[in-house]
């Protein structure tokens, strides 16, 4: 990491040390690349269209839109976010996804980055497992001159769940129900 990146991560860790606070604890999506690299064992669902691909990570109901060709937004119209803006293209049987417009995320556990980070993912089907299920492999390269002195490269593999279903997550529901209980307690009435 760069001295600046290390200082910011150290400061963040010091700030949150000894607390249970994290993006997850507050039902905030992990953001790229953590949303893709670390979904906590939860599945992801890929909806594949001609000009747009949607990836839903079950954990936190995180959603990414990957645009192709003319469907892409002009750079000036792209809205920065935790998962950034992703555009895709096919290089033979490899799906290449480039992500920009990420917001600063010093709160990512293993992949903290600045708002200057860009990410390239290269996806490819990579054979089958012992049960004949297809394996999807990705190589992720994150470049961030503010936090890292060289590109961060990681790989990950998924196995297909035939006829699988992503479940609803609705993370904020717990805190909403707790809030309703709190309001009811303050007013001395039962929760309706």
């Amino acid at each position, binding site marked *: 990491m760069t001295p600046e990146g290390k200082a910011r991560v150290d400061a963040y860790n010091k700030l949150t040390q000894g607390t249970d606070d994290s993006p997850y604890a507050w039902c905030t999506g992990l953001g790229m690349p953590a949303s893709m690299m670390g979904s*906590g*064992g939860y599945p992801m669902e890929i*909806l594949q*269209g001609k000009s747009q691909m949607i990836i839903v990570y079950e954990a936190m109901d995180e959603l990414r839109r990957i645009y192709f060709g003319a469907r892409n937004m002009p750079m000036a119209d792209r809205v920065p976010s935790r998962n950034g803006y992703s555009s895709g293209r096919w290089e033979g049987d490899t799906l290449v996804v480039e992500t920009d417009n990420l917001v600063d995320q010093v709160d990512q556990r*293993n992949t903290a980055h600045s708002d200057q980070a860009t990410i390239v993912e290269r996806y490819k089907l990579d054979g089958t497992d012992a049960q004949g299920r297809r394996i999807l492999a990705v190589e992720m390269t994150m470049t961030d001159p503010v936090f890292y002195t060289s590109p961060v490269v990681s790989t*990950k593999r998924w196995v297909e769940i035939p006829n*699988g279903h992503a*479940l609803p997550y609705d993370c904020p*529901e*717990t805190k909403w129900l707790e809030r309703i209980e709190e309001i009811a307690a303050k007013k001395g009435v039962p929760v309706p």
Partner: protein
Amino acid sequence: MNTMLRRFFVFTAASLLAATAGAHHSAVAFDFGKQVKYTGKVTAFTAINPHMKMTIELPNADGKGMHEVKFEGHSVRHMYDGGYRKGMVKIGDTITVNCAPYKNGTEGGYVVSVGDAKGEFMFGMRSRGAGDDARVGEEVRKTAESK
């Protein structure tokens, strides 16, 4: 907008080592090296994310009256993968909760598995149908501590 979706796929991580996630909250409060069983009547039960919640009623130590003990556990995904289905636990049911206890001695803990009044396995966390609490507990510990 092109909303025509041609194909869909669901994938899950091939390796949990590659799937460590940020924490819902820390699991350090629990001792996953131990397992404690409580049997009591359910007064609250919610299959909810990011952590399921459950409260059971236990008799006071002096034998007079009852008190409530709270538990939490993994997410809905882990419950359903562990054999839970809607309606399996109802308010008023007597159940046995097998949990990793709090390190500080507080009653309650992190749910490893749930059984009926006799302790017969009902559901665990992830391992569908698994009756081997030691193995399920180890899986729960690994998942909780990876967060």
